[in-house]
C-alpha cells in the first residue's frame, strides 16, 4: 500500500493509505482528528476545510496522497498548548457565531485563512465573499461575519476581542 508522510498540527506522521483515501479520511479515521467534519462530501459545504501549506482546502476534495510532504493544520491545532483559544475561536464564542456547531471547524479554518491573507483589512463584503465556500444551516451568517471582523484586529495585533 502507498504511504504518505505529512505534518499535522506540527507532528509528523507516516500512514498507509489507498490511492482513493481522502485527506479527510486520513485525518478523521487514521489520526483520530474528528474535529474536521464531513458535511456534504460533494465539495460544496466547506465543513471539511483545513489548512494545507498555509491555505484553506476542502479535505474531502483532496487525496491523502496529494498531501504527501505537506504541512496540514486542523481545528485541533489552533488553540495554544495550554488551551487558550485562538483569537478566531474566541471571537466565534464572544459573538455567538455558532449554533449547532457542525460547520464551525471549517468556518473557523476558512476565516483564519481569510484574515491572514488580508493584512490590509477586510470589509463586510470581503468577509461574505471570502466565506462563500462554507455553508451554515443555523446562524444566518450574520454573527459569523461579526466574529471574523472582530478577530481581524486581534490577529493583526491591533486590539483585543470585545463583544458588542
Amino acid at each position, binding site marked *: 500500500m502507498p504511504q504518505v508522510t505529512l505534518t499535522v498540527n506540527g507532528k509528523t506522521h507516516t500512514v498507509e493509505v489507498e*490511492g482513493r483515501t481522502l485527506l479527510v479520511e486520513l485525518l478523521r479515521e487514521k489520526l483520530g482528528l474528528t474535529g474536521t467534519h464531513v458535511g456534504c462530501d460533494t*465539495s460544496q459545504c466547506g465543513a471539511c476545510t483545513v489548512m494545507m501549506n498555509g491555505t*484553506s482546502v476542502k479535505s474531502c476534495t483532496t487525496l491523502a*496522497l496529494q498531501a504527501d510532504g505537506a504541512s496540514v493544520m486542523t481545528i485541533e491545532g489552533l488553540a495554544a498548548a495550554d488551551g487558550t483559544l485562538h483569537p478566531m475561536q474566541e471571537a466565534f464564542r464572544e459573538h455567538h457565531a455558532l449554533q449547532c456547531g457542525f460547520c464551525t471547524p471549517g468556518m473557523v479554518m476558512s476565516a483564519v485563512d*481569510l484574515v491572514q491573507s488580508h493584512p490590509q483589512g477586510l470589509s463586510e463584503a470581503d468577509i461574505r465573499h471570502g466565506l462563500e465556500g462554507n455553508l451554515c444551516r443555523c446562524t444566518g451568517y450574520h454573527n459569523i461575519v461579526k466574529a471574523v471582523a472582530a478577530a481581524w484586529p486581534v490577529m493583526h495585533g491591533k486590539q483585543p476581542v470585545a463583544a458588542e
Partner: protein
Amino acid sequence: MYDFAYEKPAALAAAVSSLASDMEAKALAGGQTFIPVLKQRLNKPSKVVDLAALGLSGITVTADTVTIGAMTTHGDVALSADVQKAIPALAHLASMIGDWQVRHRGTIGGSLANNDPTACYPTAVLALGATIVTDRREIKADDYFQGMFTTALEQDELITKVIFPIPQRAAYQKFKNPASRYAMVGVFVAKFASGVRVAITGAAQGGVFRHAAFEAALSANFAPDAIAGIVTPADDLNSDIHASAEYRAHLIGVMTKRAVAAA
C-alpha cells in the same frame, strides 16, 4: 470511489508515457472536478497521474502576452499583480471561480482540459484568442474547444501552459448559478486593434462559443448600445430547472452589455 494506483512523476515526459502506456490512466491536477467525478463513480481510472511535481505552475508577462502554466491555481491568477496589471479581466475571472478553497487547488489546465459547458476560463481563452501549449504542439483557441466536455486533446496529451495575447480592453461578467457558482451565463469581451471577440459560457448545449453578430457590431462600435437590436436565437441554448433557453438568450445580451461597459 473505486480504488486506483497513484503516481507522481517528476518529469513531463514520464507523465506522458505513463498516460500513453495505459488507456485507463487519467491525469490529476487540482482535483476540484476530478475527485467529485471519482466519488460519483462516473470514471474508473486504473491509475491516476498527479501532475503536481512537473513544475508546471507560474506566470510570465511580456509586453504583449501573459503566459500561465497549466498547474497555476485560480487563486494565484486572481492575486497576481502582474496579471491584474496586464489583463485585469483575467484576474477578475479567476477571482470569481467557485470559492477560496476551490481557487487554492483548482488549476487553469484542469479547467481547460475538462471544458465544462458552464466553466469560466474557456471564455477567456476563446475571446482572447489564446494558444494552448501541450507536451507536443500548440493549439489555437478556435480549434481547441470541440463541444461539451470535449477538446482537441488526445488521451495522453498534457497542457503545459496557456499564452494569452494582451488586449486593449477586456472584461468578464458572470451571472452565477447561486447554488453551484458556475456560470448560468458568462461573457468575456476582448477588444484588440484587429477587432472585438466575444465568448459565451453556461448557455449553449455545445459549451463555449463565439457570438459573431455581437463581434461584428462591437468591432464597428465598442459601446453597450451597439448590440441593442441584436436577438440571440434560443434554439441551441440550454433549458433546465435554473433557466429556460429564452431566458439564457436574454441574459447573453444583458451580460455582454455589462462586460462592454466594464471593459
